[in-house]
């Protein structure tokens, strides 16, 4: 049986891992290569690196981080943040990333998904979506935010994701703008709506504070994978402990 993936996320800026609340108030959380090796040793199923600075210098630093990580970490690596062109993606994949995630660039130029999928294969193309809740009633709706969550676009999340999958997105990295950094649980209404909408895998992100939250995203939210940052960075829970908890609740996970 296919297992559910547990994915630590490393937000990187200026060559350091950082953690903030709703995309702001950043705190230092360590060296990205060391952190990656640590999570690999703990049994992480995959790693996501997001360059939240998204400056040209930051991208240069990230290429080196990815090169170094790929030499010692033998699980899939996904890299995103500030990738705007096919050439940006090619550099990250060449450095050792298995997937690239794009957000703002895809919204501005959806053709990038088609082009990237044609060149690198769909499985390389992860669409990152920052979803901001518009309503709280039964007609739940979310809007796409770009530029690291700072810019609302007025685009409907579900419509955008459906279109993006048609174009070539092979996986969705879905972050709840409202829940991110608050540690009060994922937006599982959002996770479920997207998981049921598309046939590609969905990674739930934003809001993990307890192991129960991860369980809820995988059960109620129907996500294929969960991404979390702070609960792992500050060593509140180990990956092993997380997986044992989920396994005891009947969620298939990789434990060896």
């Amino acid at each position, binding site marked *: *049986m*296919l*297992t*559910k*993936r547990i994915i630590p996320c490393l937000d990187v800026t200026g060559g350091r891992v950082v953690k903030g609340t709703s995309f702001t108030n950043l705190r230092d959380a360590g060296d990205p290569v060391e952190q990656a090796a640590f999570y*690999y040793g703990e*049994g992480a*199923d995959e790693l996501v690196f997001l360059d939240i600075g998204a400056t040209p210098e930051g991208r240069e630093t990230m290429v080196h981080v990815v090169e170094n990580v*790929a*030499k*010692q970490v*033998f*699980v*899939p690596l996904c890299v995103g943040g500030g990738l705007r062109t096919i050439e940006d993606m090619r550099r990250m*994949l*060449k*450095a*050792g990333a*298995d997937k690239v995630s794009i957000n703002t660039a895809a919204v501005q130029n959806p053709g990038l998904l088609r082009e990237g999928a044609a060149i*690198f*294969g*769909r*499985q*390389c193309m992860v669409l990152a979506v920052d979803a901001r809740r518009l309503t709280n009633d039964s007609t739940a709706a979310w809007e796409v935010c770009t530029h690291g969550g700072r810019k609302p676009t007025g685009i409907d999340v579900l419509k955008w994701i459906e279109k993006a999958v048609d174009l070539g997105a*092979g*996986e969705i990295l879905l972050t709840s703008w409202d829940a991110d950094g608050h540690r009060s649980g994922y937006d599982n209404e959002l996770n479920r709506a997207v998981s049921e909408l598309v*046939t*590609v*895998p969905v990674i739930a992100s934003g809001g993990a504070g307890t192991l129960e939250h991860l369980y809820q995203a995988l059960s109620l939210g129907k996500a*294929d*994978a969960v991404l979390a940052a702070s609960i792992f960075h500050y060593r509140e829970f180990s990956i092993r402990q997380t997986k044992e908890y989920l396994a005891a609740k009947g969620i298939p996970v*990789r434990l*060896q």
Partner: protein
Amino acid sequence: MGKDTKIIAVIDYGAGNIGSVVNALVNLGHRPTVTGSASAILNADAVFLPGVGAAADTMKSLSAAGIDECVKKLVDLKKPLFAICVGLQVLLDATEEGGEYKCLGIIPGRVCMLPAGLKIPHMGWNQVKQIHAHPIFTGIPDNTNFYFVHSYYARPMDRSVIAGTTEYGLEFCSMIINDNLFATQFHPEKSGEPGLRMYSNFLKYSLL
């Protein structure tokens, strides 16, 4: 004999994620040669055929680089060969990916799309059931999880070549062994320690 006296080639045909295969081999203490030259490939003691993306594109790249015949020759000569993911798929007669596309025809059978109803691609860690006992599985327990990412699967006609199977909507062939030809639908180079162990077992077995 020392590790350096044997030549390990990773086939470079302008596609596929060769970097991660090379990183895995370097981590195991080897110095693989990355090459697209048919003579260098045929001269090696063990060969890796990486693959990622679409089978039809991979076949086109292999043919354009003149490596299709070289791979067939490796198998005829019973040279140790490890094919990965789409590298496995192109060993069969044909794939239904992108219509119908002729492949290398080394292993009789076809490559078909995974059944509808589940998430496609099949992406993530899944168990490989070991069908035969083989030194390649030394130190790797039955039903160990390996990392998969694919939308099509191989259906070899001769079931005796199936060395491993995996469950995803159906039980499909996730590993082939035929003499010195080894092929996995999963990515050992992305499957943590058990994956590295499989490459190490293959090289030990091949380079004796």
